[in-house]
């Protein structure tokens, strides 16, 4: 046996050298309670929130080449018949939320890059 890596650390080091993913950060909160402890002060508790930037994550989801052809960028209204009386609903872009967001709130957004 001739393992490719000397030890786990070497393997992890190599993994760490791979292109970066959105990084995790930790924000801690101090919660002040309403129960008094033995010293007569209010009890507190520290909690940790581990999180990463959702915008970076969205960027990665949109940019992931594995999702090529599986992404849609604009709402649609799909009809089963030509007179438009039997509307179809399936994916999120066929629904009203996206449609109204784009039509009604469209003016609210600054006109962006038009690909």
């Amino acid at each position, binding site marked *: 046996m001739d393992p490719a890596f000397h030890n786990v650390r070497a393997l992890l080091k190599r993994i760490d050298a791979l292109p970066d993913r959105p990084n995790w950060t930790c924000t801690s909160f101090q919660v002040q*309670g309403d129960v008094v402890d033995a010293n007569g002060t209010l009890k507190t*508790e520290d909690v940790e929130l*581990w999180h990463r930037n*959702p915008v970076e994550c969205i960027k990665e989801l949109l940019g992931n080449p594995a999702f090529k052809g599986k992404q849609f960028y604009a709402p649609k209204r799909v009809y*089963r018949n030509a007179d438009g009386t039997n509307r179809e609903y399936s994916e999120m872009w066929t629904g009203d939320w996206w449609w109204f*967001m784009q039509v009604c709130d469209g003016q609210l957004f600054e*006109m962006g890059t038009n690909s």
Partner: protein
Amino acid sequence: MAPFQMELPDGVTIAPVIVSSDKTQLTRFAGDKQAWPVYLSIGNIDKKTHRQPSARAMVLIGYIPISKLECFSKKTRSLEGYQLFHECMCTLLKPLIDAGTNGVDMLCADGFIRTIYPILASYIADYPEQCLVACCKESACPRCIVNPKERGTRLFSNSRDPANTICILGEKANGENPLEFDDHSLRAVNPFWADLPHCNIFTSITPDILHQLHKGVFKDHISSWATESTEGGEDEVDARFQSMSPHPSLRHFKRGISLTTQWTRTEHKNMEKVFLTVLAGATNPAVIRAVRGVLDFIYHAHFETHTDESLGLLDAAWLTFHDNKHIFEDLKIRKHFNISKLHNIKHYIDTIRSHGTADGFNTEGTECLHIDLAKMGYKATNKKEFIKQMTIWLRHQESIQQFCLYLQWAVPGYTAEISKNDGEVGEDEEEDEEEDEEEDEVNAVAAGDEVMESYTVAKKPVLRNVLVTSIVSDYGATDFLQHLSSFIDMEPLAGNVAPSTASTFDLYKQVQFVLPPIPEVTSEPTPDVVHATRAAPAMITSQGIKWAIPGQFSTVLVQESPSIAAGGPLSSKPQTSQCRSFISLTVLSLGLRIAQVWVIFKLPAEFSQYNHPLTYVHWYTPLGRTPNDLDTNMFTISRSSHNHHQRASIIPVAKIIWSCHLAPKFGCKIPNTWTSSTVLDDATRFFLNPYLHHHDFFLL
């Protein structure tokens, strides 16, 4: 007719953000190790990709801290828990405020750069967390301001309004006591969604089929009310479940249902599949109608594509329940219907219209992710300060996966050997049970000429050279020879030898079909197996006892072309396999007939050149145009006979559409001699069960 589409001009691109959170246990047995992961995805990616946990279309963006909040007195603890959650979510989603207001340029998978405005569109959670997100009490509805006492009605109630709610909560925080605060059943917290641009959190809360429909409405309420309403009570219902006719895709409740304590979602679904046929005859017709309303609603809610029409049916099903629910009050089973799960159902149609169909918002998806991302991660830690270790573990996993994808793209022919954990726990269990190990399925080939066949059989028949006498006695194919001769007579390529009692045939044990994709049901083909295996007696071998295996003779839907149907099944002649490909689903029900398959065999070449497998079937009476049992809205049929002789014939396998489930008509009291394996022979009248597959439901 091809659907036509209306499209908007380009300009801004919206990324509808889907957030999902679900508190979960990290260990199976030992208690209090919990995590509270928050997942994120975007509506730009299609549902099919979302559903594959291995595609990683859902990203873990954070772990909300879990604390028992022991620094608070018991009274304030739960409210502070609410507040802590909102503060964490606020921190977590803060970057979305600026991005949703000003847009961010992003490179998309198709190579274009767009200015993306990520906007929170949907929040997937179970009911308690929905209330947490909406800042309301758990007795209220997270979407509208319905009076908790009126949740059992179909009355219209106003939706909650975010701006208004923020205003009320703000006043409350300043020490005022606005009237609406109690009217709207709010809880005093500072909501995380207050600053998110263009976000209406209340409409973003999407239905949760698993917890609300399967567990909530069906299992916890309807099924127990209905059981209570039957004359024999639990014992009778159990007996009926026990003697239900089997089907490969159906779980058999060997011990009935009342003893089962741990329910999984597969069990709920399996119970739903047969529940109406179990009840039929045993209880008040109004109960049957109410249960049918609920079941129809659940099945419709599962549709992957809805149209205005099918949404109408969805609504009608719910109306059926409301029209008949009074029976539970009349029978003194229920005093009221003020149940949040019953109320929530009202919002299904709105959500489907605004956010797409409910399968995109299933909590089942996040439960798979828990196993993949959270539980596996926990296993890799030393169980101390595990959240931090889990984040590192996850980063490693993601980097490796990303790199594998890159290698697959960059190096042609490279396939990464990553263990894919799809997390489909529990889903496949019973299918394994039913699997016939002896069958040589790997070698199964499509026996097709020019047309792509929709069935597959084993490459070589499993049972060789079976005598006609054995076929007649062991397989119950009484008039095998007679029907075979009439089949060969109709066949243009008939050989010169006629089959006799000394002839032998090669038999198959099963044929596999593929259920055609129907947009409403599923976009992927679903496998379906038709069995014809005889019973095997119990044997004591050196490997231990081999239990007796009951014979399996599937019932199937057979396509008869309408013109031939008039002449009776005996006159049906073989058709080319092409007819299967052109099934038009709308006319399908006209030419459909039910049969039970007894023998699947190959015609030896000396009799005929016909090279497709054939089946010997027993016919059931024709289906009407519409279901003839009005309360259950199901087709009832019985065995078809002619001069006290069972009608039978030999048909090509290609005429079989798919397998179906016939449930016996139990009547008001189940005869105690019926057992699951013999019930298809014992009973005389049957229901054609439309709840077996979503395919059946759509068709029947």
